[in-house]
């Protein structure tokens, strides 16, 4: 970190990176378009066949990759949405006079509706439940299609006419390829847009840490549901093209093996990568033809479904050996080529930068005296923090209640973790919540932030009861938190982390995200995020992967992220844990200045001295009970508190209080030192 760098305006630093990203995507899309135009002109009919189906299947694969990459969920029934839409489209155009375009739209809509109905209850659940349910859905769709007269049972729907575009019949593979290709390209662009949009970033944040994302106001459930429905829409569009191209829709297309094939495309292409899904669909279609040609030559006389061996092997080997799939391999190769050519962001430079960063933040400088240079750095850091602090709006006047806990209680079975705790957090003040291990601080904290629901009692934030609601509810109202065990969004860079803090201030949803119509908004928030990073001396590492930062700076980044939300109330969960002395001082000073700027802080902390030095009001929990609340001085003099801390009876504690005057002396020195720093 050098002073020059931080002095540069944010916009100038950002430029090359954004340009590079956009450029890469530009080039990628352009190359794809060119390849798609040229392909039918040069491909053999065999390849052409592969190409057309690869394009059709690329759509459901893109949808599935969004679901897996963004929502972190797997569908084992992607083919069922493909089939539902194919059936709907086929039935509409063969049985009704509805215009074909409208039929296609309706067909996709039916897929989305079914997805909504299935996802609505299931996406509330975690992990693999959706995978299991969609697996079930696939079988049900297959069986219903097979058994109902409405879908013409096993004979399916045939007699579908070829589509016409401007009076021209799409009568052969070449034209059909051109007919589908634009949709795949647009689908790809929409999907890429989505992954970089506010919603997309929020979802990848959810995958990194659901807790942290929700604390920033991300409504995980509704976003996931939207992506699930969207993925069904992609599958549905693929189904429409399938119906057009094969011109018969039978129950088999809803079958499990097709769902597996879609899954294979996504896994082979590269989990969670939209490009990978497109690549994967071509790879799988090539494999499908190739394996049938290759395997009988390896195993003579092999007939039957021998390509299964290939599928099985490829699936297993990719997961074990190449979890990144095709895209992962491409990335490795590009990196290798770049290193060979000596171009691009060299890893040595980057690691040097990192090295430098960690040198400047000695996480364990306990016994060693802080070097002169280091002291200056802190000095300037604090100075800087003061200079560029963001505005801290206060909706209520200083001193009035922002947060009120009333009778807050949490029972686990027979154990009462928090028992009838009542206190207020006043605006524009720092309130500390302390207590020995197991006192119920964290439980209390989690009930306030919404991570867990209280057994009884209320949490009112700005007069609105938020207990038992998901953290994103309180977060949207301006209450956010940091985490003791860091919850860093590892899939993005530092800037991306802080940018996520702006989530609540954004508006654009999934649709606008896909259409790429949120550029100005995104840029504005990015600038704010950049400013906050600069203000807190993290500007130099803004572009580094968040997980690469040393611990102390990750914690500061979390604070930046929380501040980016422009919170009314900031909850800090043991912010000092794991920080070096110097870092603690920077953070403490920062908090003081933020308070002065109007921010309300509630802090749970073990470092009692730090709390005493920092807080305007201290609440002490012991064994689930609130045993004391008041100014630091009042609390320190409370025998109950001493007893709680040193594990003694109260009478003993009285003696301790008298006996350890020396410690008091040390303690009272602390704030002075801080002020000097």
């Amino acid at each position: 970190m050098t002073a020059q760098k931080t002095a540069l305006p944010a916009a100038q630093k950002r430029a090359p990176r954004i340009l590079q990203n956009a450029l890469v995507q530009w080039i990628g899309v352009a190359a794809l378009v060119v390849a798609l135009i040229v392909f039918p002109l040069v491909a053999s009919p065999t390849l052409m066949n592969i190409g057309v189906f690869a394009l059709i299947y690329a759509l459901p694969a893109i949808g599935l990759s969004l679901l897996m990459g963004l929502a972190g969920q797997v569908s084992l029934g992607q083919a069922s949405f493909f089939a539902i839409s194919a059936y709907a489209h086929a039935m509409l155009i063969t049985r009704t006079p509805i215009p074909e375009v409208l039929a296609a739209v309706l067909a996709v809509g039916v897929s989305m509706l079914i997805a909504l109905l299935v996802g609505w209850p299931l996406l509330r659940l975690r992990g693999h439940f959706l995978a299991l349910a969609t697996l079930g859905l696939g079988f049900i769709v297959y069986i219903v299609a097979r058994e109902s007269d409405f879908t013409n049972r096993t004979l399916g729907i045939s007699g579908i006419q070829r589509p016409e575009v401007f009076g021209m019949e799409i009568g052969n593979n070449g034209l059909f390829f051109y007919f589908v290709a634009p949709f795949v390209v647009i689908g790809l662009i929409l999907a890429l847009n989505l992954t970089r949009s506010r919603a997309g970033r929020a979802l990848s944040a959810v995958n990194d840490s659901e807790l942290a994302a929700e604390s920033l106001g991300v409504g995980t459930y509704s976003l996931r549901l939207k992506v699930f429905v969207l993925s069904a829409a992609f599958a549905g569009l693929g189904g429409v093209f399938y119906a057009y191209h094969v011109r018969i829709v039978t129950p088999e297309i809803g079958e499990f093996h097709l769902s597996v094939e879609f899954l294979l495309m996504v896994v082979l292409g590269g989990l969670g990568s939209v490009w990978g899904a497109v690549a994967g669909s071509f790879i799988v279609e090539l494999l499908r033809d190739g394996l049938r040609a290759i395997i009988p030559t390896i195993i003579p006389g092999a007939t039957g479904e021998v390509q299964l061996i290939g599928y099985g092997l490829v699936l297993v080997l990719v997961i074990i050996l190449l979890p990144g799939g095709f895209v992962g391999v491409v990335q490795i190769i590009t990196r290798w080529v770049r290193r060979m050519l000596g171009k691009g962001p060299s890893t040595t430079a980057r690691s040097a930068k990192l090295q430098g960063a960690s040198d400047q933040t000695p996480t364990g400088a306990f016994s060693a005296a802080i070097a002169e240079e280091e002291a200056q750095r802190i000095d300037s850091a604090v100075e800087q923090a003061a200079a560029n602090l963001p505005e801290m709006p206060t909706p209520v006047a200083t001193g009035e209640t922002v947060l009120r806990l009333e009778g807050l209680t949490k029972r686990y079975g027979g154990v009462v973790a928090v028992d009838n705790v009542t206190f207020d957090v006043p605006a524009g003040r720092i309130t500390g919540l302390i207590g020995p291990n197991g006192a119920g601080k964290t439980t209390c904290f989690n009930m306030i932030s919404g991570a867990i629901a209280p057994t009884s009692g209320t949490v009112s934030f700005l007069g609105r009861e938020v207990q038992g609601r998901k953290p994103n509810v309180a977060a949207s109202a301006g209450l956010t938190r940091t985490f003791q065990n860091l919850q860093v969004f590892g899939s993005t860079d530092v800037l991306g982390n802080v940018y996520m803090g702006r989530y609540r201030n954004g508006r654009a949803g999934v649709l606008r995200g896909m259409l790429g119509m949120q550029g100005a908004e995104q840029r504005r928030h990015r600038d704010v995020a950049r400013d906050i990073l600069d203000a807190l001396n993290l500007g130099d590492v803004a572009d580094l992967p968040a997980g690469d930062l040393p611990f102390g700076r990750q914690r500061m980044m979390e604070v930046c992220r929380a501040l980016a939300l422009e919170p009314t109330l900031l909850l800090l969960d043991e912010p000092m844990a794991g920080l070096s002395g110097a870092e603690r001082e920077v953070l403490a000073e920062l908090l003081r200045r933020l308070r002065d700027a109007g921010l309300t802080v509630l802090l749970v902390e073990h470092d009692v001295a730090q709390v005493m030095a920092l807080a305007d009001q201290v609440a002490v929990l012991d064994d689930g009970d609130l045993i004391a609340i008041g100014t630091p001085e009042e609390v320190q003099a409370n025998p109950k508190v001493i007893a709680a801390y040193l594990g003694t009876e109260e009478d003993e504690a009285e003696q301790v209080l008298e006996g350890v005057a020396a410690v008091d002396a040390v303690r009272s020195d602390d704030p002075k030192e801080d002020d000097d720093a």
Partner: protein
Amino acid sequence: MLVDFLQLTVAGLSQGSVYALLAVGLIATYTVRHVINIAQGDFAMLAGLGAVSMVAGGVPLLLAVIFAIIGVTVASVIMERLIISRVKNLTTLVSIILTLGVSTLIQACMLLAWGAEGRRLPTFPGSDINVAGISIRSQELWMLGALLVVGGGILLFYEKTKFGKALRAVAEQPVAARIVGISPVVASIVAFAIAGFAGGVSGVVAAPLYLATWSAGLLLGLKGFVAAVLGGLVSFRAAIIGALVLGVLEQYVAGYIDGGFKDAVAFLVLILVLIIRPQGLVLRQSAVRV
């Protein structure tokens, strides 16, 4: 009518006992390893086909059955060693994709080795009985008996033996289990051995009645899986009961509604259970229940 009802119930229970054995295996691996093994049913078919071949080759039925079960048990352990244990960050989702690959692979191998046609294992000794118009095939009794002996045996193993308790310990508190010296590697191997064993047994007892086919395992395994979900993926007892209920339910649907919808029952149950009661039929949650 009552006769019909009882007849359907008998058939449902015997079918359900096959699901139950598969479900027991699925729970064994899920509790210890958090793996959902899609290939479980394929192991059953592998055992069935293996036994058929051995009998055809002149091996006495009893020996063939035992060899087949042992073979599949070993195969399940090999899968654990060779594939499952190789994956870093094995989540349940990844395990689903991975074992899907294994399932495909096993199916292909069965197809190569035994062809597409279903094979019948000779019926186990015994004669069919007819009680008041209800016909019970001797093989159905073998299937129910297998559940009683093997399912019950596995329950007893988990409940009474030290090793079984150690497996529960691993499922409940992996770290504490390591501290007392229980190797997670060994626990995982044992869990997969149990899964393979139960799957193998289900395959050989069903093969005389249902035939063994290369492609039938997937659906069978998924039905077992639905039963396991009914047991919240943790409770052996609830899963066994769930499996029997599922088997009977399928028969009622086939008998009273429409045979073509029989397979849909399981998956409808699956979706409903996941929506209404994702923890299954278990009353109290814990990492593992016998």
